[in-house]
């Protein structure tokens, strides 16, 4: 285990961090949604994707080929969502919790 990683990759987050911004748009949680990459065709949970939050937009990249899957930004009272890198988004509908 080493600390000599480059600073950009050390600031890398994952799809869990995109859950908050996307909650403003989606009625259900999307971190458990599975997304198929438009570039390489691989499918993985949004929570497994790589996220770079330092850019002007939050950039979500494919964990397999690192192509941009999704970008989300908010400015001047508007929210911008670019989904052109996601070929298909499959969202699990919530189950009613019963822990009590």
């Amino acid at each position, binding site marked *: 285990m080493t600390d000599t990683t480059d600073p950009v990759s*050390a600031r890398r987050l994952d799809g*869990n*961090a995109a859950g908050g911004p996307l909650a403003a748009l989606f009625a259900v*949680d999307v*971190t458990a949604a599975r997304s198929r990459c438009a570039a390489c065709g691989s499918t993985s949970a*949004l929570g*497994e994707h790589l996220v770079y939050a330092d850019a002007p937009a939050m950039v979500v990249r494919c964990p397999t080929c690192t192509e941009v899957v999704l970008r989300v930004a908010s400015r001047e009272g508007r929210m911008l969502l670019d989904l052109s890198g996601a070929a298909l988004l499959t969202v699990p509908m919530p189950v009613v919790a*019963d*822990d009590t």
Partner: protein
Amino acid sequence: MLDNRAETPRVHRLVLDVPGWPGHLPGQHVDVRLTGEDGYTAERSYSLASPPEVPLLHLLVERLDDGEVSPYLTDEVRRDDAFELRGPIGGWFVWSVSADRADREAARRPVQLVAGGAGVSPFVAMLDHHRRLDSPTRMQLLYSARTQEEVLGRDVLGPETTVTLTRQAPEGWHGETGRIDAGMLERRTFAPAERPRTYVCGPTVFAEAVATALVGLGHDPSAIRIERFGSAGESS
């Protein structure tokens, strides 16, 4: 906010009463948004360290000297102050008794948690939830902290937890020391043959190194869930 107290030298425990809170799952987080007088906003994610059974929300906030959000939360916010929260967030990096009841196949597999520093927060919630509901699921935590006094969640962690101290160990310490590596993972976590469901949380470099070592030991990459909180560790 109801309480803001130092849990360790660098981490404060914030106790929040959130009106209309819909409940949450262990592992979920909230986004804290601060707005300055000039309208500038800063937002950070913090895992919930309290289980769903506790009506108040607990956050463990690590103070980062150059942070935009954490110094305000640890040093400035007082009892009865209010700030903006979004949440609960997340359906991927979660574990709950109800999910195990709904998926008996998955529930037979043990749960391995691996934490670096403040990355232990979601696992404190999971272990507390596990204990309160007397879950039959086998669960272990391997937790890397710098020193013994920086160990978080001591009221919850029990015999299921192995702590390794990376900077300094007190005299008479019989636990692990040094960073988590492949050898320690092999000694202190469920073997690949048990097909554990593994959750890794901590700074990005830590979390990715642990995940790589686990895959090297023969664990199924698709059974490893990671939550990274960047290099600064602003979020936990």
